[in-house]
């Protein structure tokens, strides 16, 4: 009795050890990708700013009625990045915009990842007619043109942050699902799963203990890339005026800048900074995603 529990204990410790070793090994490989590290550093910076936004720049700075600056003032020692058309500090808007961009990007990705993984796993693992139907459904969703859909949804359901998250989530899962499906199909045929089946493992055990842990790294790398796309999408939708009208995001700042004619008046401080932020965040997510893909999928190997 006691020996049995001891071996179980040591087996757990062994597994924990192995997992820790794998993590540190992966981290070492990741560190060797300079671009991935730079991306991670930039993202950390933006995340810290987004979380600490209320401390760095008081929320009052967002209220039009309490704006202190003049209309479209160029950068000065008081307003480092100038003011917008309503006299608010562009820097304050940027800081608060980081929250919306990161939130929408992450929330939409979670939706896309959950749906994509569920459908990809099911259609890959079970095959047969159910798998075939799920595969078809995935293909159908793959061809929905997301921008027209987003425009339609915003018009029909009204404009809100939640709608944007739903639209991005719903249109971006098929890519993940197909990726997971292809992975599941190859893993299903591996000998160790055959062994598990022979030992009497049911589908849920096989999926939870064998397939999911093998597919997860792919999901993880793919997720980082999905966040990048989701943030770009949010910016575009807000620019088209489909975003939540009560919140400031980088896209809605650019929408304002465009509609008040900041381009013709040469108010570059209202146009350039939000775009640069978007590019930095999206590029960082892409670089981190690429580095992760190489760390977790050694087949891609050197040379890339």
């Amino acid at each position, binding site marked *: 009795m006691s020996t049995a529990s001891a071996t179980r204990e040591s087996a757990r410790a062994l597994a924990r050890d192995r997992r820790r070793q794998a993590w540190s090994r992966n981290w070492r490989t990741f560190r060797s990708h300079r671009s991935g590290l730079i991306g991670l550093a930039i993202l950390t910076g933006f995340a810290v700013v987004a979380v600490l936004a209320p401390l760095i720049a008081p929320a009052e700075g967002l209220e039009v009625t309490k704006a202190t600056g003049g209309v479209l003032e160029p950068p000065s020692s008081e307003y480092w990045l100038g003011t917008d058309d309503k006299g608010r500090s562009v820097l304050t808007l940027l800081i608060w915009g980081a929250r919306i961009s990161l939130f929408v990007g992450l929330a939409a990705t979670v939706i896309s990842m959950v749906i994509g993984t569920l459908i990809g796993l099911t259609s890959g693992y079970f095959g047969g007619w159910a798998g075939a139907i799920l595969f078809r459904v995935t293909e159908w969703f793959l061809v929905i043109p997301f921008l027209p859909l987003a425009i*339609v949804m915003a018009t029909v359901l009204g404009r809100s942050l939640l709608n944007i998250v739903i639209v991005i989530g719903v249109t971006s899962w098929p890519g993940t699902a197909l990726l997971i499906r292809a992975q599941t199909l190859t893993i299903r045929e591996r000998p160790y799963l055959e062994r598990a089946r022979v030992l009497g493992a049911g589908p849920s055990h096989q999926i939870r203990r064998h397939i999911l842990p093998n597919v997860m790294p792919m999901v993880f790398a793919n997720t980082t890339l999905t966040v990048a*796309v989701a943030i770009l999408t949010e910016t575009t939708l807000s620019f088209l005026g489909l975003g939540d009208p009560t919140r400031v995001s980088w896209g809605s700042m650019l929408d304002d800048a465009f509609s008040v004619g900041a381009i013709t008046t040469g108010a570059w401080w209202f*146009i350039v900074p939000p775009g640069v932020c978007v590019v930095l965040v999206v590029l960082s997510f892409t670089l981190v995603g690429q580095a992760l893909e190489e760390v977790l999928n050694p087949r891609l190997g050197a040379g890339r």
Partner: protein
Amino acid sequence: MTILGRADYGRGGESQEDNLDSASSGRHGTYGRYLLGRCLGSLGSLAFMLLLSFFLFRVLPGDPARTLGRGRFTTPEQLDEFKRTYGLDQPLPQQFLTFLQNTLSGDLGISLRYRVPVSDLILDRMWPTILLVGTSTILAGAIGIWLGVRGAWERGSKFDKVSTGGSLTLYSMPEWWLGLLFIAVFAVGWGPIPGLFPTGGLHSIDAEPGTISGVLDTIWHLFLPVLTLTLAYLADYALIMRSSLLDELGEDYLTTARAKGLRDVQVRNRHAVRNALLPTTTVVALSLGFVVTGAITIETVFSIPGLGLLATEALTVPDYWVLQGTFLVASFAVILANLAANLVYGLLDPRVRT
């Protein structure tokens, strides 16, 4: 991920039974079956799109008449009249049948804003979009493939680093923001740079279409939007071309070709690039399907009267039948491009005809 991943998601996923099937029926005649299968698949997608469109416009809003005519009616009689005109007082299945019948016969309703049939509007607005997106796609395809090939062949070189870095940055950029910057610098003029190009539109008011000066005028107007879209598309194509050529580099047939004594350029162009072009072709064909989507933001920024601008204009009214029309056309374009991509791929690469 569409950009950094492989183009042929579904391929690894084709089930094994299919492979056995095609093996037993032999190599000949399989393209016919492949064609039939793909066409049926596209019809399925089309049916799904029609259903989705009906759902979005008639079921999701709960009370469509209220949403469709928001701010337009003051009395209940007007609302009833509106419901009768658009058949909204009928039961849902009946409405769906009418919707199917109308859509399939090309009747997309009447624009609430312009008071003309939506199908006429769409046909009218299609050409600027096709001109804009078509030109950009061809340019981006040519330049992007060249960049990708050179980058992969000389991987790690300075050229590769600059072109990959540039492509990744362009890929991370909202294309309309780039357009805004171009307008600010090259159209409005910034500092010492004078405004060289118009800020928007398709042609000057006094230009006569059909004459040489009219054509030149349109080219002058389209220069910046085409430049913007080309740069945006080019990034995708260069990255995909590069990664698919890198996939080919380790293959044995390249060693064979070198062993035969072929020159480096011949090995590259006749062997490696030919195979690596397959996924890129598919991606280019697929991206053509997103014509409307891609044009929406650029047409808005440069105020080019195409399908994209039609959709964003309809948004402010809101002009539901125009929105539905552009949504259907956008979906149809994607399905068509998908089918074309699959058929071309099947023609070029017999292995996928499963």
